[in-house]
């Protein structure tokens, strides 16, 4: 079973990388980009076959390692 984790910065946390990307897009002539927030996608290949179990275990992984919940949100998608 595969899982995909999206890790994003919480609202209100400054994202200097996102700001630099937004600036660069503007310089390339892409207009109307109001804001850019950069995050991470982590794909996991799991031995678990039960969807609920897999989701619970990936959530634990997020809390313990994959996300820093001081500044990041995460969402788990079981594929």
């Amino acid at each position, binding site marked *: 079973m595969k899982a995909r984790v999206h890790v994003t910065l919480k609202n209100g*946390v*400054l994202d*200097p*990388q996102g700001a*630099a990307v937004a600036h660069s897009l503007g310089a390339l002539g892409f207009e109307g980009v109001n804001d850019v927030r950069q995050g991470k996608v982590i794909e996991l290949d799991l031995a678990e076959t039960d969807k609920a179990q897999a989701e619970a275990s990936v959530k634990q992984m997020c809390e*313990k*390692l*994959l996300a*820093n919940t*001081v500044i990041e949100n995460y969402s788990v998608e079981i594929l």
Partner: protein
Amino acid sequence: MRAAVIQFPGSNCDRDMAVALANVAGGAKNVSMVWHKDAELPKGLDVIGIPGGFSFGDYLRCGAIAARSPIMDAVVEFANKGGYVFGLCNGFQILTESGLLPGVLMRNAGLKYICKDVELRVETTASPFTSRYTVGEVVTVPVAHHDGNYSADPDTLKRLVGDDRVAFRYTETPNGSMDDIAGILSANKRVLGMMPHPERRADAQLGGTDGVRFFEGIADALVSA
């Protein structure tokens, strides 16, 4: 005084830290190098240093993987029992990731890796690490980091300032850190994390000695305790 320096794959300030500690600990025989995969610390330890570098290649987040290394359970337990722990640069990032210090070190506001001397203002003498300095004194210590932009939620920031837990501030922030914070202390003032490198200013022949008192302060606290 017995000290330990924890080594992770990618640590690169571990030897400098060990030399600075040995100079105040009565020689290298009193400083142990401890590998991150060890589960136990040497017996009779007084202080633990977490060195700078690029542990685990800064993968995932700086310090995140090192903070989950086997030895870190023992380090957290040591700190929770009142032991002295300090982390410099990547060591600071590891201490925030391990939960021993609040907040987080984000990418520098200018997005660039910064390697230069900076001026730090000593903000408190109420910790062993800062006891040999005077409040308001300005010292010169180098920084060398890409992710030193200290950030914390408003409540945490208020607590750090209100409880005299800001150890050092930049006179001019190089990295965008909130409130110009360069180094902070735990609630019991026995755990310190800072981005600048006092261990690189601990030898007159290697650039200066403004960092020497950082290590002497640790030795003072242990002798008097």
